[in-house]
């Protein structure tokens, strides 16, 4: 029961609230659960409250893991297409079939 969406904090008011932005939509966000948050930071917002910060470095790390998977997947598809008949490429990450 935890629908929460990453939003960027674009404004902080003095009363514990701020403004979060997602695709040009601005919504009031209550910041009382993330004291010390700054403008420009990302938070996850649940029911109008920022419940935690989003660590962008960690996000980018996992995204780069995914980028590697995508690259490997693309190579595996191309390799399979170019070799007829061929053994199936190893599905373990980082390995591909050399032609």
């Amino acid at each position: 029961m935890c629908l929460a969406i990453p939003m960027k904090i674009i404004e902080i008011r003095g009363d514990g609230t701020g403004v979060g932005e997602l695709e040009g939509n601005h919504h009031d966000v209550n910041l009382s659960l993330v004291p010390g948050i700054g403008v420009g930071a990302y938070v996850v917002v649940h029911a109008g409250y920022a419940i935690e910060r989003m660590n962008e470095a960690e996000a980018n790390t996992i995204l780069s893991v995914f980028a590697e998977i995508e690259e490997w997947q693309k190579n595996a598809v191309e390799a399979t297409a170019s070799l007829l008949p061929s053994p199936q490429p190893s599905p373990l990450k980082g390995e591909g079939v050399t032609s």
Partner: protein
Amino acid sequence: MSEQTIQLGHGGGGLMSRDLIQSEIVTRFGGGMLKGLPDGATLPMPAGRELVFTTDSFVVQPLEFPGGTIGDLAVHGTVNDLAVCGAVPRWLSLSLILEEGLPLSTLRRVLDSVKRTADDCGVSVVTGDTKVVARGQCDGVYINTSGIGEKMDEFDLSAGRVSPGDHILVSGSVGDHGMAVLAAREGIRITHGVVSDTGPVHRLVQASRPFARDVKFMRDPTRGGLASVLNEVVEDQAAGILLNEAAIPFSSGAKGVAEMLGVDLLQVASEGRMIMIVAASASEAVLSAWRSLPEGRDAARIGVVTDKKGRVILETLTGGHRLVDVPRGELLPRIC
């Protein structure tokens, strides 16, 4: 000086009513058949042609939302219903129910929208009515428009004609209107986010006329969105539908609000879009014709008719499949 408002007397049929009609209705719609304010409009009956008649009521809150007003909806809604029946929209009636206390400036903006939109759509407001109810008995303004159009003979539309292999087309991004209204109600302020898609589709229908023989079915996805329309098509039919999620156009602004509030855009209303089910051989030509019009620039093929009786299935971004349900009831924000 305080803002002028609508009073019960404006609906009483006496001097106040007549002044309101003169200053707000006749000034905007008084040329043509409304001249002299007859009780009814006498319309020329086109020889050997059929007429299409439709009606719709509009109760949206708030009255003004990003991208339009209740006045725009009132014209587009009825024009579009006529258009997707294969008719050229011609004449509208305009019935207003006003709440005591409505600011006159709001009424003027709504009526300006009606006029501007009717002119843009090439339809005339030829008859109408105005009533006023006591404060609290309606939400500002309720509008009913009924419309008459001339049927284009080339179109023979019915869900029964749909058959496996046919393509499903949509004229643009879906769910923008519903999200714009929900955002406005939830206090989400838009700078360059979601905007209502309220708009006419009759020019898209007219652009499809050369291919009318291949067009099986048309509808505008209003309340209940794509999910509702497509489930209606396959109900009690031998056919089913398979949609490709990656091919369905969504605006980024609508997606943002939908994610925030936990809403499924397939169940959300558009007010300026149409879906068409067409024989595969004609679908590229129709898309090409649509994309040459501003209201069709994001048109896309989103799916195909299958033989999976009575089911609407979505192939998701991750390659899985799920049922697209008939929406249950109210569109409510969720946290779960």
